[in-house]
């Protein structure tokens, strides 16, 4: 595939009058893991949510600039946000399985999307891709809420994969998990990136360094007049460069812990 998966031009996001993020310009490339890092309130999650129009669900939110997905403006009036979210799946900070069986959690999306084919096969394939199959194959009808936190998160990834998306957005997917479960999710990300494009927001800089191919550093600037903070993109480069020899002093200060 040629060209970037996402091409973001001068993106600003507003909540009412408040500008949460300004002038973001970056590209997300296929079959890569892109990490967003930065201090709290820097707008990294806000930008992530623009990629599958999750911000539409917040009434006062609006954007300026463009987010192109394979050259198509994601915010064009003709675009159906539900279709967008099928192609661009999301995994959240806290595992949020439905209070249903493991099987039904995974089958939920394909059923709603009206996907044809053998549902058992779709469920098995999704659970295998999420590296959960062996642990749950004998209890598919058990409640998903009985799984451990790490298993629940992998179930959520399986659920996201079940509808055959191209992109997986991950919003701090490991912040509620222990190091072992975190390691499994990170391994999983490496395994599935051959087939998917992954964008991950993480507070854990070492995680960004370990898993990502490219990394974007966001920070906040304070508007003295209104005493508000606006997020902005500082630097976007290959992860190796970002963590060994960043170009911008603000990135340097953040990754070396000299921030603020």
């Amino acid at each position, binding site marked *: 595939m040629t060209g970037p998966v996402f091409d973001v031009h001068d993106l600003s996001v507003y909540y009412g009058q408040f500008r949460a993020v300004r002038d973001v310009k970056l590209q997300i490339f296929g079959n890569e893991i892109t990490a967003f890092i930065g201090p709290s309130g820097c707008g990294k999650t806000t930008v992530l949510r623009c990629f599958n129009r999750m911000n539409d669900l917040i009434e006062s939110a609006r954007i300026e600039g463009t987010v192109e997905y394979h050259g198509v403006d994601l915010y064009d009036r003709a675009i159906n946000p539900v279709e967008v979210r099928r192609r661009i799946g999301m995994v959240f900070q806290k595992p949020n399985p439905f209070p249903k069986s493991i099987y039904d959690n995974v089958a939920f999306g394909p059923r709603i999307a009206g996907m044809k084919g053998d549902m058992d096969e779709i469920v098995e394939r999704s659970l295998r891709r999420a590296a959960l199959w062996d642990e749950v194959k004998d209890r598919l009808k058990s409640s998903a809420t009985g799984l451990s936190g790490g298993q629940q998160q992998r179930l959520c990834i399986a659920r996201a994969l079940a509808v055959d998306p191209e992109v997986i957005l991950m919003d701090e997917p490991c912040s509620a998990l222990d190091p072992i479960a975190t390691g499994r999710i990170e391994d999983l990300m490496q395994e599935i990136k051959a087939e998917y494009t992954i964008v991950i927001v993480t507070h854990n800089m070492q995680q960004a360094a370990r898993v990502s191919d490219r990394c974007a550093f966001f920070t906040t600037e304070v508007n003295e007049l209104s005493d508000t903070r606006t997020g902005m993109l500082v630097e976007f480069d290959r992860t190796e460069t970002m963590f*060994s*020899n*960043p170009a911008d002093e603000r990135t340097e200060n953040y*990754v*070396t*812990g*000299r921030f603020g």
Partner: protein
Amino acid sequence: MTRQFHQELDDLRDDVIRLAGMVSESLAKGTAALLATDLDAAEALIAGDDEIDELALEIEEHCFRLLALQNPLASDLRHIIAAIRMASEIERSGDLVTNTMKAARRLYGTPLDPRLRGLIEKMSEHVHRLFRLAIDAYADRNEGLAAALDDMDDDVDDLHAEYIRTIFEVHEGGGIPLQISVQLALVGRYYERIGDHAVNIGERVRYMVTGWLPEHTGAARLAARRAMSQDAETEAPET
């Protein structure tokens, strides 16, 4: 935690400078001992090298500890990597001073030709200056100075070549026997090598400040050979 880490980095930097100071001092004392055929001073310097080794090892262990425990990144990471490499360059320079002192023992009792004496003095001065400038570049994070060391080292190489020529002349004129000539040639080589280590320290300083890595000529030759054989393969007519 972060503040403590950055304090440790400052301590590390101080240790590297202290190590270099010890070698710089023994280099100057070593030349004096050699020219004055002061064997007591030579012995003291040989014994003193153990302290240099000890501090170099401490620096290395400190670096490994910081790498393992602190996950250093960006300029902090480059500083630690540079410190590991520099500690070994400096420590090796100290060993070369020790070698010179052992040669001084072997040369004991042989009067030195005044021309050779003058050249040893000159080489020592140049190398000493180069070494101090390399450490200044490190202490001041001065990339320009670090990059200039390579050219400055050319003077040392020229002096070394002149020194070797002079050894031949003096030897052929019957001034010194072969055995002594070889010892003297080795002494010249030791000074010349310390100059090379100073240049290497400069390269590490450049890496620390900017992330620049030296292009090793061997690696460049290999890359060129590989590119050429690839071209030859693609151009080969199909049979």
